[in-house]
């Protein structure tokens, strides 16, 4: 490859996130100034509260784990030209299925088997929640943005009903503790993380990211999936069944979000709690955009957004926590405006490809 194209590719891959970061930095400074604080000291406080101590870093890694999943979820969809906004519902469904499986298994089940079954349940239920809009799109042309948003409401409401009518521990909105299928805390490997929510789900999720990257860029299925996302008519010409790829992509997308459910349920609280998924689905969109739909980019972007989120807690004393939410919004807007995929997907609905 020539130096010129290498440079062009590097620019396309790294420029948008870097620009977004710079914008976030400037906007963040202005916001901090607007509440009468010194940007330098607030930023220092933020770094100290996140990367500066083991507990803070553990919390960052915990949040990173879930974000990687919802980020991968959105990325896989976008690679196929589909905008899966249903990450939140798929994540909740995954967590719920993991909890149910864990509750159903005898407490004496060997840990490896129990974890494997719970993970499988999470992936399967998330996958199913993605398969439904996939089929609706492929068979009936129902736009996935609408169906995934609506499925969010349906899934979250159904789970809320299930929890509040019987599955809960009285006076709470969570299930009983899961004894089988617990994922060990990260502290069991690196004692310094003691007390933080970080757990070995991170390892499982990183493996999933690697697997997703392998699938997208090294296999025929990924070749077809990306072809459909880039040029559906050329994919159709190349013998790809576009409708099937849509279904497959949304199923995979949902499965990845569902996997994220184990982080909270198996690794942290050991029960399903209503509302644990709140916010992660939509933040996953931002993660995917900043991560440029590349699995390793998604991992890095997850770290960034997890740091922002945890950092918001760290500076809560001097700056309103909402400021961090505003900052996240600014980053998302900055990236959205600079990423070609977004424009491509926005154009997508106008293309006349039949699903067959």
């Amino acid at each position, binding site marked *: 490859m020539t130096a010129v194209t290498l440079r062009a590719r590097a620019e396309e891959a790294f420029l948008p996130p870097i620009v977004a970061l710079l914008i976030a930095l400037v906007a963040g400074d202005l916001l901090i100034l607007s509440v009468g604080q010194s940007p330098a000291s607030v930023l220092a406080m933020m770094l100290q509260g996140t990367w500066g101590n083991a507990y803070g870093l553990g919390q960052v890694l915990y949040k990173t784990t879930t974000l990687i999943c919802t980020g991968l979820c959105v990325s896989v969809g976008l690679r196929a030209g589909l905008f899966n906004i249903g990450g939140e519902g798929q994540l909740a469904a995954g967590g719920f299925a993991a909890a149910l499986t864990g509750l159903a298994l005898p407490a004496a089940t060997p840990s490896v088997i129990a974890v494997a079954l719970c993970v499988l349940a999470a992936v399967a239920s998330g996958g199913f929640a993605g398969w439904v809009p996939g089929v609706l799109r492929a068979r009936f042309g129902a736009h996935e943005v609408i169906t995934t948003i609506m499925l969010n409401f349906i899934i979250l409401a159904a789970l809320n009903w299930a929890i509040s009518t019987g599955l809960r521990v009285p006076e709470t909105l969570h299930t009983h503790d899961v004894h089988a299928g617990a994922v060990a805390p990260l502290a069991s490997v690196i004692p310094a993380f003691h007390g933080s929510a970080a757990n070995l789900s991170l390892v499982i999720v990183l493996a999933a990211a690697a697997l997703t990257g392998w699938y997208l860029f090294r296999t*025929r299925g990924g070749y077809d999936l990306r072809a459909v996302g880039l040029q559906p008519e050329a994919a159709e*010409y*190349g013998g790809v069944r576009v409708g099937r790829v849509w279904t497959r992509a949304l199923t995979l997308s949902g499965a990845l979000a569902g996997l994220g459910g184990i982080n909270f349920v198996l690794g942290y609280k050991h029960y399903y709690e209503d509302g644990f998924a709140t916010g992660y689905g939509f933040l996953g969109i931002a993660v995917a955009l900043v991560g440029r739909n590349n699995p390793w980019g998604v991992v890095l972007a997850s770290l960034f957004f997890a740091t922002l989120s945890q950092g918001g807690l760290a500076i809560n004393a001097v700056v309103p926590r909402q400021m961090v939410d505003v900052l996240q919004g600014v980053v998302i807007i900055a990236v959205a405006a600079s990423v070609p995929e977004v424009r491509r997907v926005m154009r997508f609905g106008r293309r*006349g490809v039949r699903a067959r």
Partner: protein
Amino acid sequence: MSGTGKRPSDLRSDGLREAGAGQRPDPLREAAATGGLREAARTGEADSSQLALRMSGIWKSYAAVRANRGASLEVGVGEIHALVGENGAGKSTLMRMLAGLFPPDAGRIAVNGRDVTGWSAASAIRAGVGMVHQHFMLIPTLTIAENVVLGREPMRGLALDMAKALIEVRSVAEQFGFTLNVRERVRDLSVGEAQRVEILKALFRGARMLILDEPTAVLSPPEVQELWRVLRSLRADGGTIILITHKLDEVMDVSDHITVLRHGETVATMLTTNATPAGIARAMVARDVVLVSVPATLPAGAAPPARPPLPAAEGASRRRAERAASLTLLQVQSLTVKGSRREPRVRDLSLTVSPGEILGIAGVEGNGQTELVEAIAGLRPVASGSITLGDHDITALHVHRRAALGLAHIPEDRHRRGLILDYSVADNLILGRQASFAHHPGGTFDRRRVLENARERIARFDIRPVDPALPARALSGGNQQKIVVAREMGGDFSVLLAAQPTRGVDVGAIEFIHAQLRAARDAGKAILLVSAELAEILALADRVAVMYGGRIVGLMSRAEASVDRIGKLMTGALEGAAVPA
């Protein structure tokens, strides 16, 4: 007028536009028409203020494409002026500049004697120039009246004054003799009615010069007659109409003057009463030979030669003919294919292609060629009829099954279908056969084989630059097309669909691709070649079929084919019906 006798439309229009015709220097026009280019006569014409429009020396390029190359156009007040030419001749580009959608690179535009070069669309509308596009821009859920007043709504305070809107729209409709119920919703209208609404919209905005871009493309014959009635009544009212079309019967039917564009240049201007369909066709399609690989096309009217003078082709040709008689590789029977609006685009069409034969399909684009090729390729559902490849009925087979049976396809639009522009050259070279490069179906690609395949094809088809990792987007048009050709023709196939195989590529690549097509033919492949370039068809085809309106309206051997004959068939003139000029 000319002694050939008046058509009913002329008699009627003469009656309608006495006033307008009286003001115009008719003798001069006659002279212009008989003298060839009208420009010559114009120089002696003092009264150029009678011109509604004068465009001169217009140049316009998009990237590498020169759409207009010094084109000129003069239109008198109160005339219906037909702007004809093949697709890609630059008609629409010229008119879009008149409508202010973009400025010309060079040249001048004068409307009613005022220089308006490079004006904006808003000023064009204010000056009374309205364009009715090929694709309607109406809101289906609103009524006719609501659509017409859109952007110019009569207001009462902050609210739309619907009563006033109805009255205003109705009065404009009545003034121009439109039979429309203005309270009807646009979604309930026929295509012809929707088009009248578009015209009404332009008139409501005060258009005195109306540009219609291929208005009859979607109309049925009675709707066309209704449109002509509307246009004539506009003319009677002093309006000026420019009609973009490539259908000769329409030109003869309704226009007063004709300007012919070819390759972005104005090549002829004539008075309709002095024109013949054959003359217009010749002006539209007669091409100077631009390609070294293309044998000389016939001068119009000359006797057809036995075969294009290809050295050492005679023996092969005879052998091919013998083989052709014995079997066919591709057979299409009574094929009907529908378009996106359920309208038939290919009608009951049958054809066969034999091994060692190139069947060339000539025709003005948009007459069903695209749909025919896509139906054979499996990219478009077949409404009825059958497609047979060798011994296999492939009518209902999926794209990749057809490919496995030996069907190769060079699609007409490499940027949309033929290539995935963001994929590397190597990845593009396996598109359609990606399954055979995976270790097991759905599994990992064998990167080594993908690269080997790329290296081999790149070398054999001389794709430049030699870099399999480069994204296809980075290559020139000619080299991009070579990727498609290398992929489709580099492997095993028995039947090739080659749709516009040399569109938008440089001369060197054209020669190369032509050589590949000839070599494949000589190797016994059956090739269906669809091209808008008549020269290409004549250079390559063994038999020529002409498509018009979704049907094959003429089928002849290469020896019987001539520019004149094909040109006439292309524009819808019936074989045998046209009197030789």
